[in-house]
């Protein structure tokens, strides 16, 4: 990257809207909590304390032993929320990486290769799209014992078709641009064109799709866990917590609401940051803004 491009990216970071600053602070706080709190927190998320069952959080009962209260078998809600957050972040991030790599390479293969390969890849993508994702997920996790690894792989792989379609569509339009013809007239290989022109021009829609997929993978995992076919107790996940807290919603609402708020914040911040990134990465919008 050239100096000038770098400096103009720096200016747009300086001109970051306050909303995005808040999002970044929140996201970093969540990541930091997920990374460091498990080491600092003295209370283990699995330790049960039957005498401290359903304790109220401190903001309701200042004398409470637990900062965010405790669940029906007396496990600390704060440390469980942090563990659940870490779990969601790991599944989301790794899932997105798997989906992006798989989807972008298949999409490029399809768009640049064309022919029968294109037909096969797009047929599979359409087939998958015609079956509800949650249904596929339920079938898979019933067949395979769900664990964090299984969730990452399954959710990641299943998100490939969005990328593949996007990349293929972009390639079909970029392929006709005169600058690609020009590269061809200069004798550039397909690979050169793919890397130098196509990837650069499709990077920003991919980034936006990745961030929106990050939130949808996190949500899918929570949905599955909520339905009882995702991660199984005693594993900790935000979806599981929301699901198990539901039985006590009338009396101990914080069991459901606190993990829900964390989940919602995670999803909102990642989507907003994704939108902002798209604008920063586009040289035309960068100068307009």
């Amino acid at each position: 990257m050239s100096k000038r491009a770098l400096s103009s990216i720096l200016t747009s970071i300086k001109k970051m809207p306050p909303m995005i600053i808040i999002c970044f602070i929140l996201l970093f706080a969540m990541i930091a909590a997920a990374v460091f709190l498990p080491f600092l927190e003295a209370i283990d998320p699995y330790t049960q304390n039957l005498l401290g069952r359903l304790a109220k959080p401190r903001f309701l009962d200042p004398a409470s032993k637990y900062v965010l209260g405790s669940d029906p078998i007396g496990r600390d809600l704060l440390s469980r929320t942090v563990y659940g957050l870490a779990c969601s972040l790991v599944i989301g991030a790794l899932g997105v990486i798997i989906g992006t790599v798989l989807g972008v390479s298949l999409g490029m293969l399809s768009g640049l290769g064309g022919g029968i390969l294109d037909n096969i890849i797009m047929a599979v993508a359409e087939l998958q799209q015609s079956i509800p994702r949650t249904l596929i997920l339920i079938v898979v996790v019933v067949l395979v014992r769900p664990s964090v690894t299984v969730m990452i792989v399954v959710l990641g792989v299943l998100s490939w078709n969005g990328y593949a379609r996007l990349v293929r569509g972009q390639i079909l339009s970029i392929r006709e641009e005169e600058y690609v013809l020009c590269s061809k007239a200069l004798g550039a290989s397909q690979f050169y064109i793919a890397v130098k022109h196509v990837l650069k021009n499709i990077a920003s829609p991919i980034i936006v799709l990745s961030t929106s997929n990050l939130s949808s993978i996190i949500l899918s995992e929570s949905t599955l866990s909520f339905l009882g076919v995702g991660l199984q107790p005693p594993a900790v996940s935000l979806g599981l917590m929301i699901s198990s807290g539901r039985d006590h919603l009338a009396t101990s609402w914080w069991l459901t609401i606190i993990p829900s708020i964390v989940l919602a914040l995670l999803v909102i911040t990642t989507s907003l940051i994704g939108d902002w990134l798209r604008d920063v990465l586009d040289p035309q919008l960068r100068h307009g803004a």
Partner: protein
Amino acid sequence: MKDDNVILRVDDLRKYFPIKKGLFKRVVGNVKAVDGISFFVRKGETVGVVGESGCGKTTAGRCIVRVMEPTSGQVQFRRGGQMVDLLALSKHEMKKARQEIQMIFQDPFSSLDPRMTVKKIIAEPLDIHKIGTRQEQEERVKELMSHVGLGAYQLERYPHEFSGGQRQRIGIARALALNPSFIVCDEPVSALDVSVQAQVINLLSDLQEQFDLTYLFIAHDLSVVEHVSDRIMVMYVGQVVEMTTSKSLYTNPKHPYTEALLQAIPIADPRSRRDFRPLEGNVPDPSNPPPGCKFHTRCPYVQDICKREPPELRELKGMHDHFVACHRAEELELQGIQSRTAVSRSS
């Protein structure tokens, strides 16, 4: 042609686009975009190509630089004193030959990658052919930018920061990067304002002199082509109908279609009144062209023979370098217009 000076000779070039229909993509017909054109270009000259939209000019240009694979035909190009058929070259040999043949594109907005800086755009040919170190490439880019009238301070800018004319200059600089001998200019000024058109055309002629370039200049505007071309080729529905020197094309057209094109050039004089008969009808469908002469459906001088037999492109007797594809070329008294180049240059 025994001419030693010929740098490019195109023989019976054809490009058909198949029309596929139905579930099994059966070929039901062909769009004959370029339907057997033959011509030659001498070293150092500019050959203009004119014709309506859809007559196959651009397709022909793209087939010559082999961005598109033609259906059949030969493209002979002089490399190191020998004529080589570009279409018969292997991928590897073709890549080497490409250094000598470059293309300038029509749309200055789509011909530059919006995500690349000017430096990277102009250096791309060097990059693809792996010429020079980074440092040397940058020096070369600066040199090229000064040739086309851009400043080195604009090196790190993106295409959207430039005007249409400046963008076209960037495209020209890129085409010059490998020191080509032959450049196909595909309507290089048709997307520009009239005032900018003149600047870019003058730049192209200056560069031609400076670097001893040969141009194939594709345009749909006769007045632009007249200005730059030594010889002009008129195309109609994928075929060449007339080819001769600019002067004789303007003053002494031999094909009715050329006459119609000349009559359609506006005259910048509000008092001028002339008998103007625009052509009737439309350009025939290139997937289903009429039999005989393709122009007979619109030709005011049509006779029976025109509907039956397609005319050959032939050199007129007693007229050097004047090729025409019309049965009645000798007998027709066609109206030319006064060449305005002389007038506009002296004023």
